[in-house]
């Protein structure tokens, strides 16, 4: 049997016989996914939202035919009904001032004020902007008197949204949900008013994406990083301190076979962990994978090979297992903070961003996210594949160099 395989089997056997380590390998990914899933992934719900809908509804317009045409609708009510009832607990209030008061008192995260003539003014504004000359009501065409409409008031064509942005995530969510409700309201207009200046958002990717879809690939890469680094460093340092590594080097085993053996063992462990992470994200949180699961797993294994090489490199610094454990945060902290797991790299100050570009986790998380959410294939994630490929090759060569040096004194 190939010596690298013999070494890989030996590592896996040791881990199998050590129940605590097996527990760490199996339980940690599930635990992390569950904790992050419940603590972070669920979008906020039942956020208090104060609503003052003063809109009296209906809008009337002069026509060239003579009589005034009336649109029997209440945009204020449509808007309120369009607001997500799961995210918000809607509380009616009287006016803009009372909304402001509720937010100031901490009784509401946000508020929406709709003025009394909103329907009339909003649609008037629409006709003024679009110069729409004909509208159809009940199959009958009406020719609008645009000359008169242009002189009609539109000062109440605006709704006011108030937001408590002390929690920026909640603040952003309130704004986003208001935008969604507005888009829904616009879709329900009986007349075609394409306001220039009103932004209609179309999701190119992640139409129904949840927060877990965004963070799960990052967490997956992160857990693989921590456990692979920790197990590699501790395993190698333990082999060194208890003398087994010397015994291996005294045998006909060559340094590259040791490196390869470790690589095989930890790639398999990473594969198992990736399956557990993906499985728990899918089963517990309904995470949807748009791309190929096999590509996602292969991508993680490629990353794990590089991380294992990094662990081999770092193991040379530690003289004992205690020192080995202390090395883990050295990788853990910069990877976690700069790898773009929890927030976009674009949100970081410009002078820090170059650091993110040298952290392999950045490419692992981004590539995996593209496979999972965007459904991208190898052709689209080639940059991430190349980055991780270079990382893996460099780390394997470095790991081989330090192992060779240690093997031959």
């Amino acid at each position, binding site marked *: *049997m190939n*010596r690298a395989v*013999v*070494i890989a089997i*030996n590592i896996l*056997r*040791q881990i199998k*016989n*050590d129940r605590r380590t097996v527990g760490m390998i199996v339980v940690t990914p599930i635990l992390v996914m569950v904790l992050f899933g419940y603590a972070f992934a669920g979008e906020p719900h039942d956020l208090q939202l104060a609503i003052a809908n003063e809109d009296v509804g209906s809008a009337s317009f002069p026509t060239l035919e003579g009589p005034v045409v009336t649109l029997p609708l209440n945009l204020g009510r449509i808007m309120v009904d369009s607001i997500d009832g799961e995210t918000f607990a809607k509380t009616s209030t009287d006016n803009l001032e009372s909304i402001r008061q509720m937010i100031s008192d901490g009784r509401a995260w946000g508020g929406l004020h709709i003025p009394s003539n909103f329907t009339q003014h909003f649609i008037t504004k629409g006709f003024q902007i679009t110069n729409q000359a004909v509208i159809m009501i009940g199959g009958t065409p009406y020719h609008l008197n645009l000359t008169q409409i242009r002189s009609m008031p539109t000062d109440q064509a605006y709704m006011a949204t108030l937001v408590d942005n002390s929690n920026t995530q909640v603040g952003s969510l309130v704004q986003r949900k208001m935008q969604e409700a507005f888009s829904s309201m616009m879709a329900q207009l009986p007349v075609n008013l394409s306001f220039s200046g009103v932004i209609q958002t179309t999701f190119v990717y992640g139409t129904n994406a949840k927060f877990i879809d965004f963070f799960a690939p990052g967490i997956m890469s992160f857990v693989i990083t921590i456990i692979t680094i920790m197990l590699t460093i501790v395993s190698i340092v333990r082999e060194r*301190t*208890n*003398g*087994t590594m*010397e*015994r*291996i*080097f*005294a*045998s*006909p*085993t060559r340094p590259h076979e040791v490196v390869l053996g470790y690589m095989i063992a930890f790639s398999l462990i990473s594969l198992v962990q990736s399956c557990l992470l993906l499985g728990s994200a899918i089963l517990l949180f309904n995470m949807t994978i748009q791309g190929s699961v096999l590509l996602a797993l292969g991508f993680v294994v490629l990353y794990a090979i590089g991380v294992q090489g990094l662990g081999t490199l770092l193991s040379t610094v530690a003289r004992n297992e205690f020192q080995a454990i202390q090395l883990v945060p050295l990788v853990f902290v910069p990877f976690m903070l700069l790898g773009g797991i929890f927030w976009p790299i674009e949100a970081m100050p410009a002078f820090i961003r170059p650091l993110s570009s040298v952290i392999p986790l950045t490419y692992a998380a981004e590539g995996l996210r593209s496979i999972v959410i965007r459904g991208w294939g190898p052709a689209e994630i080639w940059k991430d594949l190349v980055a991780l490929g270079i990382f893996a090759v460099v780390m394997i060569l470095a790991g081989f160099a330090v192992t060779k040096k240690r*093997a*031959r*004194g």
Partner: protein
Amino acid sequence: MGDSLPDAVVTKRLRKAYGKVNAVKDLDLTVSEGEIYGLIGPNGSGKTTTVKILCGLLRPDGGEAQVLGSPPGSSSVRPLIGYMPQDLAIYLDLKVKQNIDFFGRLYGLGGKKLEAREKGLLRMVALDGREDSLVSTLSGGMKHRLSLVCAMIHGPKLLFLDEPTVGVDPELRFSFWQYLRKLKEGGVTALITTHYMDEAGRCDRVGLIREGRLIAEGTPKELRESAGCESLEDAFLVFSRSDAR
């Protein structure tokens, strides 16, 4: 190096330093095939460094060394030597059989051949019946014996045993030397390091090492006679004092 030598181990003016500390200093050593050679000296005298150089685990800074006619660590020598480091160097999380299997397979053994050797060696060190025991559950003496089995599983011609009896009780040390004698009868050469002087008396020949240099060499009897002492311990002190002057 010159022509291939008939001896199992030969070193000439071997040197190795760690920083400013000379661990091995111009060491001349010869171990003949089939003998049990004891490298005796106090802690820090260079015994382990010498063994590691001969096993190809350390590069010497100077001098020459040959093991079974080839440079230490060369691919032709590695399959022929067995190494038992000072530490137990076995996997505590593995079973007895798994440890032996692992080291056996590193030497290309497998199948029935490996199984047969495994059985024979376990019987020899009285560990038969403990194949499926986790090593962490074994006594200290058993672990030592397992460590020896792991060094011998591939049937080496030359054994390097670095302080194999440290921390082993007298009864087990006695058994250990019995195993070693059996191996010698089978044609195995052994270079054993120790700082137990009573063990030195069991070797065919002994080299007294001090500060990385060989200060005396011969059979135990020759050394005692040469120093004019009753015991090897006294002889070692005599040679040490003489060397210090």
